[in-house]
């Protein structure tokens, strides 16, 4: 009994220690974002004399209002809808269909994961421009649908295998169409993996810099958060305190979103659906 208690404490202590280690760089970044430049140059690790918000004000002014946030939200939301919708359908069918064409198509999707973006970047931009889809929400959302599909399918393909087939069977026998079976029976069971996928893709799309730069940058009213902030940090700028403040602002929405989604993610397959 006591041994168990001790082990529990030990394990939690280690957990807390690891968490602290993880948080340290972030802590220092935040500390320095509240300093004035001279304060920061004196010491990078001491706490600031007072909470100086001028860096945040500057970072915020650079963004010129809420528009970048709204743009980021619109693009992210619509991209996610399409990605989740199409990839879950495709992953489901590819996983359940065990014939040659299914396997080949799956491989065609998955092979994209090894390809670095620079490989197809310029032809992609050229194609999008020739379709007159640059400088619009539609263009970049469609592109995200296309290029995020491989990872989404990869992630869900394996998961579907762990959903027992008997439930579907009974639904089919009951006369459900394939679509009904999928959307009302299988899809709800995919919540954990879909939640994980959503978090991963939201983060990726929200933080993406290069693709939006090439596709929507030229229309100022469409710029996303990374596109309005990048001038603040870079090789030639030594105002780290301002840069760090801008970064904190950029990071906060994602972190909040993740915390909110946490409870959906690692819920394993709970009772009800596993045992028939």
């Amino acid at each position: 009994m006591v041994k168990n208690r001790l082990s529990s404490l030990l394990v939690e202590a280690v957990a807390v220690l690891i968490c602290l280690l993880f948080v340290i760089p972030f802590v220092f970044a935040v500390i320095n974002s509240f300093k004035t430049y001279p304060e920061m140059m004196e010491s990078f690790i001491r706490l600031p004399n007072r909470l100086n918000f001028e860096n945040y004000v500057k970072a915020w002014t650079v963004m010129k209002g809420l528009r970048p946030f709204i743009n980021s939200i619109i693009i992210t939301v619509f991209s996610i809808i399409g990605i989740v919708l199409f990839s879950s359908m495709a992953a489901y069918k590819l996983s359940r269909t065990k014939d040659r064409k299914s396997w080949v198509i799956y491989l065609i999707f998955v092979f994209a994961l090894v390809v670095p973006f620079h490989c197809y970047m310029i032809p992609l931009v050229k194609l999008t421009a020739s379709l007159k889809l640059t400088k619009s929400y539609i263009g970049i959302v469609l592109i995200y649908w296309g290029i995020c599909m491989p990872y989404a399918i990869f992630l869900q393909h394996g998961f579907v295998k762990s959903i027992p087939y008997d439930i579907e069977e009974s639904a089919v026998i009951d006369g459900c169409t394939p679509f009904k079976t999928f959307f009302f029976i299988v899809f709800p069971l995919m919540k954990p993996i879909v939640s994980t996928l959503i978090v991963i893709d939201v983060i990726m799309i929200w933080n993406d810099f290069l693709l939006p730069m090439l596709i929507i940058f030229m229309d100022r009213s469409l710029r996303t958060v990374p596109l309005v902030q990048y001038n603040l940090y870079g090789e030639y700028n030594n105002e780290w305190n301002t840069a760090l403040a801008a970064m904190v602002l950029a990071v906060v929405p994602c972190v909040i979103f993740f915390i909110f989604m946490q409870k959906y993610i690692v819920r394993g397959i709970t009772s009800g659906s596993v045992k028939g």
Partner: protein
Amino acid sequence: MKRVVAFVLMTMMLLVFTACGGNAPQQGAESNQAETGTPEKKVTLKLWQWRQEIVESLEEVLNEYTKQNPNVTVISERPGGEEYELTVKAMIASGENPDVFAVRAWSQTKEYADAGQVLEFTNEPFMSVVSDFAKETVNIDGKLYGLPMQVDGGGIIYNKKVFEEAGITKPPETISELEQVCEQLKSKGFIPFAVAHKDWWTLRELFSYLHTQTTDLIEFSKAMNVGNESFKNPKIDEAMRVVDIINENCNEKPMDSDYNNACALIAQGKAAMMVQGLWSIPVIERVNPDFDGGFIPVPVSDTAGEARLSADITVVFHIYPESENIEESKKLLEWFTQKETAKLFAEKCGFLPPFENATPPKGGGSVWNDMVVHVEKGNVVPFGYSIWPTGFDAQLGQIMQGYCTGEYDKDQLYKQLDDTWKSFIK
């Protein structure tokens, strides 16, 4: 199934509506001012450049143009940030036209000129104020492409106050004097040189300032391209002593120190000297607005008066041939060459345009005037990377890092450089 179709259709419709909303042109605050007699067509010019330090100040300068020409709005951008060159190429490839855009002189301008992506300016009237030496940098096969906009200098920037406090009355002109100055500074508790070895391009600057003083760059390049030359020669060997002196007299952990750090050190008066270009003055001034600096060439020998400053055109403004606003763009560039505008550029952006009527910026103490003195005497050499094969400079920076960490000795350094040059001209 119907539900799904409906849902997808709805999503698409929503996208279309928001896309339409998103495409509404942004109405700037400018250009809607006084109603003049003749309504002129509203023009928006797109200007691209890569310098982070001038993003805000350039906007101020361009607003002046709009004040004088209310129907024209100039929007300046810094596409891609650190990845400027990539972004410009990708945008042009996808049919996104800038009106005016900046690239470097010499080989970069040549690259774009050969591809027909920039307009020829040989007969443009505004080119007449450009100095001859600047015209050379945009001269491709006898034709002029682009408006050179910025003369930058490379040498040793020194903090006058630190020199004073250390009792140094005369800035060093020879390598031996440099050594003595370092000793004196060290004894008074100052860091002689602020270095930024973590950023490879600072080492490129250093090597370039030495290299171009010890050889005729154009002849050297020609000979290297046919395999008749080598980086190894007695003059550069002598000049490399400076690199050794710097490495022995610099701030601690040089390989971890980056450009920002070096600028901060010299701005704060902790370090006395920095081998760098004058583009660093705004960065220094952000830390210390009262920085009082002097500018001298990097010595390469023990003979006084032999050292020459590096000065070259670093920013050239081009007009994209397929821009829809060529006439307006030319007008803008013409405005750039006017005396008042050149003053504005100097004041706000720290630019020294290579025009006859230009006045040097006032920042950073006497650095700009120091440079102008050398330029007017004709006592300057170009930047090596203007003529080196494209991409060579990045590798040179890496190789120099290897020298500074002790991985290579001088002979290995030269060999590495020679081999690398060969690999770039294949």
